[in-house]
């Protein structure tokens, strides 16, 4: 009742919705980069939304199924095949023992999520199955997957109405992604011109983007004085702007605290875009109110509930 990793791909890790409750002790939250995609994959295979999944980055793994189970692939399209047959995303798929799942190349987005019916046999560490790479805990032995790893299934099976468990792929690549933000906590550390630059110009993702943060390039955002503050807390999606004036978006494996000014914070409903950005992608930031941001998140949760009921 397991899968064997024939090839780990670029960066494949076990992630759930994160390790909550330990940030005050310096423990990063970790968890999936694109929570919407991961939740959708879980719903498609009949799991709770927060079940642990495999997060595959750019170049997906090769996995041999030693037992039958049901999977779903969501998020970016990394061009999956099953025994050579190409696989759709956003659809529950029955996999037989002996079959091999492969990925050819990234077609859209950056990360694909693989959910398995009944979840993976991964022990919880501090209440979560998420891999926390820096501290080497959680997930599969605290690290990314490697060749030869064997991961068990907890309760493999076939959800009801298997053939009707699909939706249209939700991730659609765009020439410029509009990402909504709530201003603050340190927007007052920037000049009016700096704020106008941030909200008016287009920024592109550099080669330095990983599970900790996404460094952007574009016009310099002007501070009133500089980009340093007395260290305080950092939320998922916080947009740090150090003194040099280029934004860094803080992601799942971010440090819990930091000493750079944060001009704004990406809204939760748009983490689905944030988690799919890769080098060269272009982004415009759009300011919304806290009320709009929270409503967007609640709408997204309602959409997931509707999907679960519809299946």
């Amino acid at each position, binding site marked *: 009742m397991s899968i064997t990793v024939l090839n780990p791909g670029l960066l494949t890790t076990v992630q759930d919705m994160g390790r909550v409750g330990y*940030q005050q*002790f310096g423990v990063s939250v970790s968890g999936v980069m694109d929570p919407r995609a991961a939740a959708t994959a879980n719903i498609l295979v009949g799991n709770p939304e927060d079940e642990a999944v495999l997060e595959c980055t750019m170049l997906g793994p090769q996995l041999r199924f030693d037992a039958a189970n049901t999977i779903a692939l969501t998020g970016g399209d990394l061009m999956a095949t099953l025994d050579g047959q190409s696989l759709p995303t956003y659809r529950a798929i029955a996999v037989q023992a002996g079959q091999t799942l492969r990925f050819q190349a990234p077609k859209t987005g950056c990360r694909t999520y693989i959910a398995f019916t009944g979840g993976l046999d991964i022990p919880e560490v501090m209440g979560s199955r998420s891999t926390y790479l820096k501290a*080497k805990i959680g997930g599969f032995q605290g690290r990314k997957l490697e060749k030869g790893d064997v991961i068990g299934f907890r309760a493999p099976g076939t959800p009801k109405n298997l053939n009707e468990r699909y939706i249209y792929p939700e991730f659609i690549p765009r020439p410029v992604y509009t990402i909504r933000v709530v201003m603050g*906590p340190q927007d007052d550390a920037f000049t009016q011109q700096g704020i106008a630059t941030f909200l008016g110009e287009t920024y592109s993702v550099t080669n330095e983007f990983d599970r900790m943060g996404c460094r952007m390039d574009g016009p310099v955002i002007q501070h009133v004085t500089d980009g340093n503050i007395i*260290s*305080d807390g950092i939320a998922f999606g916080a947009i740090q702007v150090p003194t040099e004036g280029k934004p860094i978006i803080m992601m799942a494996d971010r440090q819990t*605290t930091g000493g750079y000014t944060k001009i704004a*914070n990406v809204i939760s409903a748009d983490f689905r875009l944030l988690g799919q950005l890769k080098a060269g992608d272009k982004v415009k930031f759009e300011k919304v109110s806290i009320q709009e941001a929270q409503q*967007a*998140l609640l709408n997204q949760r309602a959409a997931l509930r509707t999907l679960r009921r519809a299946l």
Partner: protein
Amino acid sequence: MADVRFLLSGDSSVTVEFGNEISPAVNARVRAFTIALEERKLPGIVEVVPTYRSLMVHYDPGVIRYDPLVKELKGLLGQLSHIQIPPSDVLEIPVLYGGEAGPDLNFVAEHNHKTPEEVVKIHTSTEYLIYMLGFTPGFTYLGGMSEEIAAPRLKQPRVKIPAGSVGIAGSQTGVYPIDSPGGWQLIGKTPVRMYDPDRAEPILPKAGEYIKFYAIDQKEFDAIAAQEAAGAYVCKRHPRKEGAQ
């Protein structure tokens, strides 16, 4: 409490800021508010992160939205003077100074024109305020070290510093909770596990508490290390006396 600011930090967090300086007085307000908020058990609070001069409150907007939350937090601030805040604990951390455990103790001594014994005496004479944790699990940002034992960082950081190493960097001191690279001058090592993910309480120190180091010898080090390995060591703590140094 008019000077307290509520800073939007995305749609699921808010930062409550008590000042713009690193000082025990401001940090004490952060601690008091943290304790009061934890006792209130407000529905929708996911977790809180105290730092030098502010508290980040992570919450679920599906349970409580921003405006009602801020109203609650402001109400709590108003009652803060009526809430009994217990004194901070002092965590007693045993340290084997010098030798292999602290290869840079002699450098720190020479740099300050002192003997290694004097450095240890000064390092163990202070109760260090844990302003906050961050950087890695269990890493404490401590305040209060004497300038008399300050020392620059290593020019060439070490690739691997073992967990438990006690170091000095500038006028900061601290303990490495996990094996990590680093540039601090290492003056000793504690057998106490500041962080153990498999323990019921994985992280020993808490923001707002104090740490006091005391010197032990190799034999005591080995005894405590053995107890830690068996999961049987309980770190000594006592409530801090008002006005103690």
